C-alpha cells in the first residue's frame, strides 16, 4: 500500500490538475472553543478522474470539499480550480466560478419543486444566460435515462430519478469539477448503484472530473482514487480501490495503526 500525500506546491506531472488545495487550514472559533477542521491539507485532483474523499464523522471531509468548491473560505493556504485561484474571491467572482467551473450534487437532491425535470437540468445554464448544447443535452439525458421523465416535476419522480436529474443538472454545464456530497446517502442500494455507475461512466466517457464525499466503502469503490481524512489531515490514499481495500484501510485507520 503506497501512501503518497502530495506535499507543498507540487504540481501534477503529466496529468493536468482540475482542482488543488495548497496547505489549507480551516479553523472555526477562537481561543478555548477553537476547532481545527483542516490542518495544512494539500491535495491535487487530476482532471478526468473520479476522486472519493472518505473519513469518519468530524474528519473534515465535508469541510475540505466545501473549501475546494469555493463554498467555504479557508483560514490559511489557497485553493485553485483549474487555473483560477478561488481563495479571496468576492461574491461576484464566486458566482461566476459556480456558473462556469463547478457543479454540485447533494445528498438531498435539492431540485426546485416548481420546475420540471428538464427545466431543473438546464437551470444553471439559464441562470448564466446560456443555451444548452442540444447534442450534449441529449447525450446527458440518454446517459441518465430520463428522456421519458423530462416533463415531470420532482414530486412525481422517485428518489433515484431525482438524483439522476441532479446529476444531469451538474453535467450539462460541463464544469471543470463536479462536487458530490454523499450523493447516494438518501437512496436505496439499487438506485445508489445506478447513480454511481452513471457518475463513473461520465468520467470514463466524457472525461468529467468528479469529487465525491462519502462514508460508504462501496460507493468509494467506484472511484479511481480514494483520499482518507482523519482529524483534519490526509492520512492515507488509495488508487483503483475496491470495497474491500477501502474497508481495510478504514479499519486500519480506525484502530490507529
Amino acid at each position, binding site marked *: 500500500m503506497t501512501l503518497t500525500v502530495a506535499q507543498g506546491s507540487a504540481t501534477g506531472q503529466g496529468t493536468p490538475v482540475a482542482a488543488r488545495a495548497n496547505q489549507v487550514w480551516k479553523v472555526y472559533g477562537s481561543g478555548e472553543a477553537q476547532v481545527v477542521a483542516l490542518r495544512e491539507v494539500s491535495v491535487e485532483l487530476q482532471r478526468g478522474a473520479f476522486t472519493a474523499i472518505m473519513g469518519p464523522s468530524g474528519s473534515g471531509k*465535508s469541510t475540505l470539499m*466545501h473549501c475546494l468548491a469555493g*463554498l*467555504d473560505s479557508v483560514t490559511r493556504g489557497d485553493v485553485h480550480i483549474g487555473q483560477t485561484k478561488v481563495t479571496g474571491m468576492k*461574491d*461576484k467572482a464566486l*458566482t*461566476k466560478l*459556480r*456558473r462556469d467551473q463547478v*457543479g*454540485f450534487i*447533494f445528498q*438531498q437532491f*435539492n431540485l*426546485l*419543486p*416548481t*420546475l420540471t425535470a428538464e427545466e431543473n437540468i438546464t*437551470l*444553471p445554464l*439559464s*441562470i*448564466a*444566460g446560456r443555451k444548452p448544447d442540444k447534442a450534449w443535452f441529449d447525450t446527458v439525458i440518454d446517459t441518465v435515462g430520463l428522456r421519458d421523465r423530462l416533463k415531470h416535476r420532482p*414530486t412525481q419522480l422517485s428518489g433515484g430519478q431525482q438524483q439522476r436529474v441532479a446529476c444531469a*443538472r451538474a453535467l450539462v454545464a460541463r464544469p471543470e469539477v463536479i462536487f458530490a456530497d454523499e450523493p447516494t446517502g438518501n437512496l436505496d442500494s439499487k438506485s445508489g448503484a445506478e447513480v454511481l455507475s452513471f457518475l463513473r461512466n461520465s468520467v470514463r466517457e466524457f472525461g468529467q472530473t468528479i469529487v465525491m464525499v462519502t462514508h460508504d466503502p462501496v460507493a468509494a469503490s467506484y472511484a479511481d482514487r480514494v483520499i482518507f481524512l482523519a482529524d483534519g489531515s490526509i492520512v492515507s490514499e488509495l488508487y483503483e480501490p475496491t470495497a474491500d481495500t477501502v474497508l481495510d484501510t478504514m479499519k486500519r485507520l480506525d484502530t490507529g495503526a
Partner: protein
Amino acid sequence: MLRATLKSVLSRKLRLVLSGLAVVLGVMFVSGAFVLTDTLGRSFDGLFATAFQNTDVTVSVKSTGPAQGFDDDQKLTATVKPETLEKVRGIDGVAKATGIVSADGARVIGSNGKVITSFGPPRLGENWTGENDLVKLREGRAPQSGTEVVMNAGLAKSAGVKVGDQVGVLTTQPKKTFTLVGITEYSGGRDSLGGSMVVSFHESVAAELMLGTPNVYSSVDVKAAAGKTPEQVRDSVRAALGDSFEVKTGAELQKAQTAGAKEALGFFNKILLGFAGVALFVGTFLILNTFSIIVAQRTRELALMRAIGASRKQMIGSVLVEAVLIGLFASAVGLGLGIGVGSLLAWVFGNVGSASLELAGIGVPPAAIISAFSVGMIITLVAALLPAMRASRIPPVAALQEAATPDRPLTKVTVVGSLVTAGGATLLLLGLNDKLGDSSLYGFFGGVLLAFIGIALLTPMLARPIVGVIGRLMAWSVPGKLGRLNSARNPRRTAITAAALMVGIALITGVNTVFTSAEASIQKIADKEVNADLIISGDPSDERPATFDPAVIDKTKAISGVTGFSADYFDVAHALGEDRSVTIMTDVPAYAKMFKLTAKEGEIRALGPDEVLYDEERAKEKGLHVGATIEVQLARGQPRQMKLVGIYAKSSTTGGLILPTTLIGELQVAQPSWGYVDVADGVSVDGVRKQVDALLADSPEVTVANRNDFVQQQTSAFDTVLLMVQILLALAVLIAVLGIINTLALSVLERTRELGLLRAIGLGRFQSMRMITVEAIVISVFGALLGVVVGSGLGAAIVRALKDDGFSTFAMPWTAMGTYLALGAGIGVIAAILPALRAARVNVLQAISYE
C-alpha cells in the same frame, strides 16, 4: 404547553412585529379617532361655556316662517322689535337688557381681494354693544358711525388687515366698504371663539345690513338682577311676553349649541371609525396569513407535540395564546400611538388657520381604551382561529414525514366564496336600491364587506391563471420566471396577501368611478342642455350660496353682443306644507332658451305677480295642474296664494318652484347667486367674459367662466374629496404592503435551502433579489388588478343605483386605474426590498447544509 408557546413567540420576534404592526396601525386609527373627538368635544364645551357666560336669559321670536338659509336649526327671523326690548327692560328681575343683532353671512373681503372662507365656524355680523367680560378691544376703539367696524383678531389676521384699513364686507347687501377702527379679543387673550369670525357694525346700520330691516334685533340679552336666578327671570319674562317668544337661559342655550357641535363631531368620528374599520379588515387578512404560514412552518414541531401527547384543544390553545399575546401587545402600542395621533390632530384642528380653539386637556376616554383592546384582541383572535384549527388537525405522524404539504383542493373554498360573493352582491344591490328600508345603508356596507370576503375566498382559484399571465409579462429572465413560479406556488398564501391589497384599491377605485361618472354626467348635461355661453357662479363647496351685486344684471345686459341674460336667486320658502328651495329667475324666457326648458303643461313665460312655475315630477307627486293655487311664504313675507301657470319638463339644471321677480324683496338675501349669459354668434365670448369679469370686481365670491371652465369649477370639489379618501385609505394600503413584506419574508425563510441551492449553481446576489422582487410584484399587481376590477364593479353598481339622481353617464377612471396598477407594481418593489436583501444574504453553505 404555555411555556413552550411563550418561547416560540419570543424566538420569532420579527414575525411578532410584522403581524402585530397591522393591529397596531388599525388600533391607532380607532383610538386616535376617539381621543380626537373627545378632546374636541370637551374643548367645545369650554368654548360655549365662555361664549354664554354673560348671558343669563335670552329672548328671541318664535319663527313661523321657513328655515333660515339652508340651516335647519335656525328658523327665520321673525325679528325682535324695539318695543319688545323696552318691555323686557320693564320686567321685574331684569337688571339690564341689550338688543343683539347677530347673523351669519358677514363675508369679509381680505387684503388679497378674496372673501375669507370658513370651514364650519360662522361668519357673524353683529351690532357693537360695548366691551364686557368676554369681549375686549385689543386695539383701536369702538365704531362710532355706520362706516366703521371692529372685528375679532382672528378674522383680522386671516384677512390681513389692521386698524385704519378700508375693508369690504358682503352682507345681505352687496359689497360695502368700512373703516376698521378696532380689533377685539376674547377673555384669556384669545383671537377668536373656536374660529368664529365676527364683524361688529355700528348700532345704526347693523340690523339693516345683517337682518335686512333697520332698527330690529335678532335677540335680547338679559342680565338678571341681583338675587334672582336666571331661571326665575326666564319664567317672569316668558310670562310677560307670551307664547310667541322663545325665552331661554344662557345655560340652556349653551347646552343646545354644544349638542349641535357634538352631533357634528359624532358624525366625523363615525367617518374616521369607518376608515379604521377598513384598515382593521385589511389587517385581519395579514394576521390570518401570518398565522397560516407559521402553522405550516411549525407543522413538524406541532406534530411532535401531538406525538408526545398534546391534545387538539391544547394545539388550538397554543396558537390562540400566541394570538392573544400579539393582540394585547399590539393593542397597547396602538392605543399609545393613537393617543399621540389624536392629540396631534386635535392640536392641528385647534390651531389651523384662525381657528384658535382653546383645547381642553388631552383626554383618553374609556371608549378609546375599551375599543382599542377589544378591537385589537377580537381581530387577532378571529384571524388566528382558522389557522389554529388547522394546526389541531395536523396528525402526529407528520412529525416523522418529510414536511410536504400537499395542495389541498380549492373546490370547497371556491364554492363557499361564490356563495358569499353572491350573497354580498345581492345585499349590496338591495341596499343601494333602497329595498331594505331604514337599514339600506347598513345593507349596502354589509354587502360590500361580504362581497370582499367572498372575493377573497375566490382569489386562490383566480390566483393560478391570473398570476400566470401577470408573471409572464415580467418573467423574461430566469430569476423572473422563478419568481413567477414561486408566487403561484401557494395560491392561498398569494391570494390572501393580494386580497388585502385588493380591499384598499377597490374602495379607492370605487369612489373614483363614482366621481368620474359624476363628472362625466355633469359634462354631458353641460354639453346637451346648457346653451349659456358664460356662467357666473361661486365655489360649489361653500355652505352658503355665493352672491353677487344685483347691479351686475343690468350692466351685463347692456354689454354689446349679449343677447340674453338671466340671474337666479335662491332661497327656502314654506310651500305646500314643507320647506322647499325656490328659485327666482330674472328672465324666464332667456333661461328657458339657454337651458332648453320646455313646457309640459301651460306655458313657460315671464311671470306676473303671484304666478309660479313648477317641475313635472313634483307637480305630479302633488297632483297639481295648471291653474292650481299654491300657498307660498318667503323669509320676509306673509303667506300668499299663487297660481300655477306652467309645469316644465324634467330638467337636470333646475327644479322646484320658480317664483316671479316681484318677490325678490321678500327673500332672505336679495342678491342673485348665479348668472347665465347668452352671447350673440360671431361675438367673442372671451371678450364678453372680460367685460363681465370687470363688473364682478366688487362681488369677489363669484367668477364668470365659459362652459368648459364652469364644468371644471363644479367638479373641482370632487378632486378634493377624492384626495381625502385616498389619504385615509392609504393606511389600508400600507397595511397590505406590510402583508406582502410579511408573506415574502416568511417565504424566504421557508425556502432558505432552495435559495442556497440556486446560489450554489450560479445564481448571483442581484438575481436572487430580482427573483424575490418579481414574486412581490406579481402578488401586488394581482391584488391591484383585483382591486381595480372589483372597485369599478362597485362603482358601476352605485352609479347605476343613483341613475335617477343625476348620474346619467357611467365613466371609468381609466388613467387612475392605470395609476393604481402601476402603484401596485411600485408597492411590490418596495415590499420586496427587505425580503430580497435577506434572500441575497443567504449563506450558501449554511443554507444547503441546513436541515
